[in-house]
């Protein structure tokens, strides 16, 4: 039996992924500056990269990194204070300040609180959506700038810029490192959930590029969602979002055909759905509902996803229930996109004509003008009603609007099918 020492660089990567968020969160509480905290954590990482290949990975790598980062923080603060005050007192002050919240002896609650503060600051509304996403993946997901750039198909320099600017914005605005309370919590939490779901969706149906899905990104979002559920167990919408992502992710391997083309929900081979994730999703949805959150927008979307997950075949789908869930969703979170989805559900429950009437009511909706799914849905309903020529024009229009290569292919294929036959699809 071979006992191999693992490659220290890979071990360090893994330790970083496990420890970085806690490390940055703990440091941010001490130095009250997320940007600085991250730099200190990075410096500790560099120290580990120098030291560990020779010394081996320490037994408690997290504590090692924290100690290394803390020493740097003390040096830095001492130097800063030196500029302002006399040597001796400054040194003592800083030592005392650093000693008080000692992470080694910190309780788990403290770590949880720190992480939660980090979540809220990374998703702070003064930052742009792109900056929130980048900062969240970087600070909480433990992703490198390069990994984030690859995931979002943008140059690494762009992501680096976004992160630098975001940190500066937070520092300039003196955003406090704290968990929002009372009424503010709800709106700030909505921003956090939005960021996580944005990451998930970019992985689930990529808005650009050659691949229809990027499962890695879905996994990153899922992990963040699961972590958040652990940090805020009493918030129903946190479980609602977790449920939604678990159930949607359960279909990841069924969403792609042999040539990498998208396979739509009703055409998917349900045997490929991941039952473990479905069970986890249903359990999370149950938690959200028991906490009184059945009408929350994420819980409602999860409930819709659960309807599909529970149906053994596409034909068994409870469309009337889905249509009524969409109606509830329009009430709690009105949006033209939800209306469009409801139209699809209504068409399945009551026929394409009923659905088309709802879709047509959306044609003048300004926010849907460039949205490819509007002509795509309309094309589908027209085709079912036997209006092939109109359907074809809609599919072609939809194809011209999507930026995803795979999806464009699928839409053009449907357009071509309309051209071939004039009979309604079965």
């Amino acid at each position, binding site marked *: 039996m071979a006992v191999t020492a*693992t490659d220290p660089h890979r071990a360090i*990567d893994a330790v970083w*992924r496990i420890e970085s968020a806690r490390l940055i969160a703990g440091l941010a509480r001490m130095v009250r500056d997320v940007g600085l905290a991250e730099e200190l954590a990075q410096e500790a990482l560099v120290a580990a990269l120098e030291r560990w290949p020779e010394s081996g990975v320490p037994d408690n790598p997290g504590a090692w990194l924290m100690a290394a980062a803390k020493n740097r923080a003390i040096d830095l603060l001492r130097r800063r204070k030196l500029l302002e005050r006399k040597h001796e007192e400054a040194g003592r002050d800083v030592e005392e300040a650093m000693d008080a919240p000692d992470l080694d002896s910190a309780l788990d609650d403290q770590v949880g609180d720190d992480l939660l503060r980090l979540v809220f600051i990374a998703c702070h509304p003064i930052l742009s959506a792109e900056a929130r996403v980048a900062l969240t993946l970087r600070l909480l997901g433990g992703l490198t700038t390069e990994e984030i750039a690859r995931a979002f198909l943008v140059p690494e320099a762009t992501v680096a810029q976004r992160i630098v600017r975001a940190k500066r914005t937070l520092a300039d605005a003196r955003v406090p490192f704290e968990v929002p309370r009372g009424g503010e919590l709800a709106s700030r939490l909505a921003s956090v959930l939005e960021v996580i779901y944005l990451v998930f969706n970019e992985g689930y149906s990529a808005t650009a590029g050659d691949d229809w899905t990027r499962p890695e990104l879905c*996994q990153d979002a899922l*992990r963040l969602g*699961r972590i958040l559920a652990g940090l805020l167990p009493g918030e129903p919408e946190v479980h609602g979002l977790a449920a939604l992502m678990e159930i949607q992710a359960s279909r990841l391997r069924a969403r792609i055909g*042999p040539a990498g083309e998208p396979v739509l929900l009703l055409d998917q081979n349900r045997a*490929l759905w991941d039952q*473990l994730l479905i069970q986890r999703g249903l359990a999370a949805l149950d938690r959200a509902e028991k906490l009184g959150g059945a009408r929350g927008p994420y819980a409602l979307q999860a409930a819709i996803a659960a309807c599909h997950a529970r149906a053994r075949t596409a034909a068994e789908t409870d469309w009337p229930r889905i249509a009524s869930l969409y109606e509830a969703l329009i009430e709690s979170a009105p949006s033209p996109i939800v209306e469009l989805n409801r139209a699809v559900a209504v068409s399945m429950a009551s026929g394409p004509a009923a659905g088309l009437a709802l879709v047509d009511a959306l044609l003048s909706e300004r926010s849907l003008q460039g949205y490819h799914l509007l002509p795509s849905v309309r094309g589908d309903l027209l085709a079912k009603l036997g209006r092939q020529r109109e359907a074809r024009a809609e599919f072609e229009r939809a194809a011209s609007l999507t930026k995803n290569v795979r999806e464009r292919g699928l839409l053009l294929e449907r357009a071509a099918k309309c051209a071939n036959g004039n009979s309604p699809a079965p």
Partner: protein
Amino acid sequence: MRFMVIVKANKDSEAGVLPDQEILAKMGKYNEELVKAGVMLAGEGLHASSKGARVRFQGNKRTVIDGPFAETKELVAGFWLWQVKSKQEAIEWLKRAPFDDGTEVEIRQVFETADFAASDPTGELRKQEDNLRRTIESQRR
């Protein structure tokens, strides 16, 4: 990627002796950490093999063998399913587990989408292969 972390049986687990309070508490805390980090998908402990059985397949014959089974160290006593980014991450997590006394715990990667489903998402290829095999067998007879 997903890993199954397999905990092997020992004399105690095979004798149906439950771990003491202290170990249970430590393991509970460790599990909580895994859940909070978003790593744990599932995890279960198994009863002693004396409560299990094996089925042996030979041609059309199925032989049922009741537990317990002798090779204690090769038996599975429990497992976790973890979602992590690399094998190394699974290793780093496992290193934090509160085991002792020479216990060995195995990490195995679970097959996933990228491994085969992408090339055979509908199971079409496998079905074809099965058909082919059946055809060949019938020709032999």
